[in-house]
């Protein structure tokens, strides 16, 4: 069992404030992803949970007990970092055995062998067990790092961007494997990343961090479809959600850019007032009779789809279109949006008006 709660955590490093009154609840067995840019405070949060940083104020509750003053060894957590931090001259087996041979543990040789073999099988590194770590590829090393964390069977895994240093295809593979591992172990995973694809594809819950505060917590689909503000709206999705300023007039959005009038289905916000409209690229579509016109600024070809960047009086708008769509740079196109997919944000503070 491992519920984790952070209450009002603040942490400064000299003049820099890393965390500002952070509150966070992570349930036992959850795969919780902390998503944020560099400097948002996600690594500090992880280190506070691990006991590697003592917060200036606030408390860390693990399983209902105040663990704020516990040291790292007392917390039953395992940490996996982006850098592998393995012993290069030891074999894979030696690295995996290492945490079990610590003097605070009392395992028999047979128990150690059994555990190492089982972990190796789980991570598909059995045939690497007798190899020196320095002779492994990046993906193999990261598997061994994860293996070394698992072998102690901790209740909480803390992972700090463990996939960032790997190439794209290997990341795809290890994402799936980590999720499978989570299902098998049933342990609590706290996973830190700046990569929204990792957050969306792995998390039971995503916590979006900005400037040392938690902005929103939700399932991936909640974060994607019901962002609390424009910051969250733009932190998930590739390309990010389009934000277009304009005026609300009845069932119509009058864009500042191009003065185009686009249809709305359930308008939110003051009629006649200023609104920041949000629309995801997959909800913008080319339409010969569409109410808006843009010039093709860029075409990004993904093979399966194309992402157009449309320029409207200097405002850039992304539209995801089918791979078969043939367009030229600087061509002028008419387009529309799906009115039921439009989100409405307060133009001053960015809040989602649909959630008020």
């Amino acid at each position: 069992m491992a519920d984790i709660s952070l209450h009002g955590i603040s942490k400064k490093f000299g003049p820099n404030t890393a965390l500002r009154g952070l509150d966070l609840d992570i349930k036992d067995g959850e795969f919780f992803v902390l998503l944020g840019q560099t400097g948002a405070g996600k690594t500090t949060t992880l280190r506070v949970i691990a006991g590697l940083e003592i917060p200036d104020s606030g408390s860390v509750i693990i399983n209902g007990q105040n663990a704020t003053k516990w040291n790292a060894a007392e917390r039953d957590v395992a940490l996996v970092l982006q850098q592998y931090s393995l012993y290069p001259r030891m074999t894979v087996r030696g690295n995996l055995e290492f945490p079990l041979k610590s003097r605070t543990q009392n395992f028999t040789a047979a128990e150690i062998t059994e555990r190492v073999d089982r972990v190796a099988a789980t991570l598909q590194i059995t045939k690497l067990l007798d190899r020196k770590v320095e002779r492994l590829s990046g993906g193999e090393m990261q598997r061994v790092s994860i293996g070394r964390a698992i072998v102690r069977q901790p209740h909480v895994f803390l992972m700090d961007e463990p996939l960032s240093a790997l190439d794209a295809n290997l990341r795809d593979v290890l994402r799936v494997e980590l999720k499978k591992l989570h299902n098998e172990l049933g342990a609590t995973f706290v996973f830190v990343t700046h990569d929204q694809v990792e957050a969306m594809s792995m998390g039971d819950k995503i916590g979006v961090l900005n400037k040392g505060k938690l902005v929103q917590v939700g399932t991936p689909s909640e974060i994607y479809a019901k962002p609390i503000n424009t910051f969250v709206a733009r932190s998930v999705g590739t390309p990010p959600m389009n934000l277009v300023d304009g005026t609300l007039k009845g069932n119509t959005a009058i864009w500042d850019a191009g003065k185009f009038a686009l249809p709305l289905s359930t308008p939110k916000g003051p009629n006649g007032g200023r609104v920041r409209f949000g629309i995801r690229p997959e909800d913008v579509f080319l339409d010969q009779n569409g109410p808006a016109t843009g010039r093709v600024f860029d075409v990004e070809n993904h093979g399966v789809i194309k992402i157009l960047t449309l320029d409207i009086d200097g405002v850039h708008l992304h539209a995801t279109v089918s791979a078969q769509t043939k367009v030229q740079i600087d061509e002028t196109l008419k387009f529309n949006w799906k009115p039921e997919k439009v989100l409405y944000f307060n133009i001053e503070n960015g809040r989602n008006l649909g959630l008020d």
Partner: protein
Amino acid sequence: MAQIDIRNVEKFFGNLQVLKNLNLTIADGEFVVMLGQSGGGKTTALRAIAGLETVSSGKILINGNEVQDRKAADRDIAFVFQSFSLYPHMTVRENIAFPLRAIRMNAADRDKAVKEVADTLQISEHLDRKPSALSGGDMQRVAIGRALVRRPQALLMDEPLGVLDSKLREQMRAEIKRLHIARGSTSVYVTHDQIEAMSLADRIVILHDGVLQQVGPPDEVYLHPTNLFVAKFVGSPVMNVSDVRIDGATVKLNGAENGFRFPEASLAALASAKSDLTLGIRPEAVLLEHKKTKGFVEVETTNIEPLGSHDIVDVRLGETALRARTESGFVSGEGQLVWVNLDPAQAHFFDTATGLNLRGAN
């Protein structure tokens, strides 16, 4: 303006052969992207065209003239690197004008040329600044400006966007493409980023282990990869690959009891294949249904990646995990029963031993 011909070019570094009988014609005004992993030979090929690297054998022609023995400076080609390599003590104006001073252009013409290129690249306001005062994107614009100001025969770029953040990369990529359209200069661009290659290139050249794998327009490379390396290198998520057995008109994946019926004509070309076959199918060509459907095989979902705009759903069929691209929310979770089929029109069959696409189904 220039056509570039690479003929039978080989290059050794000591005993290591990094280019193996490379043949390629780059048409006048064409934008060619060399794509591959590090060590594939793409940068060496680019440097050989530029004259920054000699060739061990073979010829390089620019507009029909053999240049393989000429110095870089005598080839009239401009080069942009990943590192910006600007002169830190000179202003932007002096940096851009530098190649023109070298050819002793008079001051009035020089100013005119610098101004024109700076306008095109939207860096006019920075002309009197030092490079250290610029952002990464502006520094790379200056480097491109310096390369273009001489109006070279060809512009060669080696991962010019490699060190920029993703937003700036997208912006600069569009600018490079637009600049190419405006100027029409023959361009050769090296990258390991397949999206960059797909988005910029008139034709993509894929190099691996010093061997040219395929040359073709982006859509052709994506839809008709010549071999397994190209098939797996282009496209994300990576193309599904599985050992496969063909039983009449039924395609059976490794270890799966049930197979997929393919139109017989689509498999005819494979009948004579003596070797083992590998099936390649992109996630968008793996079709899922909720209900039992004719021709579809019942499978269990093993993983869902909800990406917002779409989902990637993994299903297990025999010993193969197949990834399918579905609309968002199509499958609600793992451990669900769904029915899967493959789109024969988008299926590829490769010779397992050689990796060559046997052009069976398409």
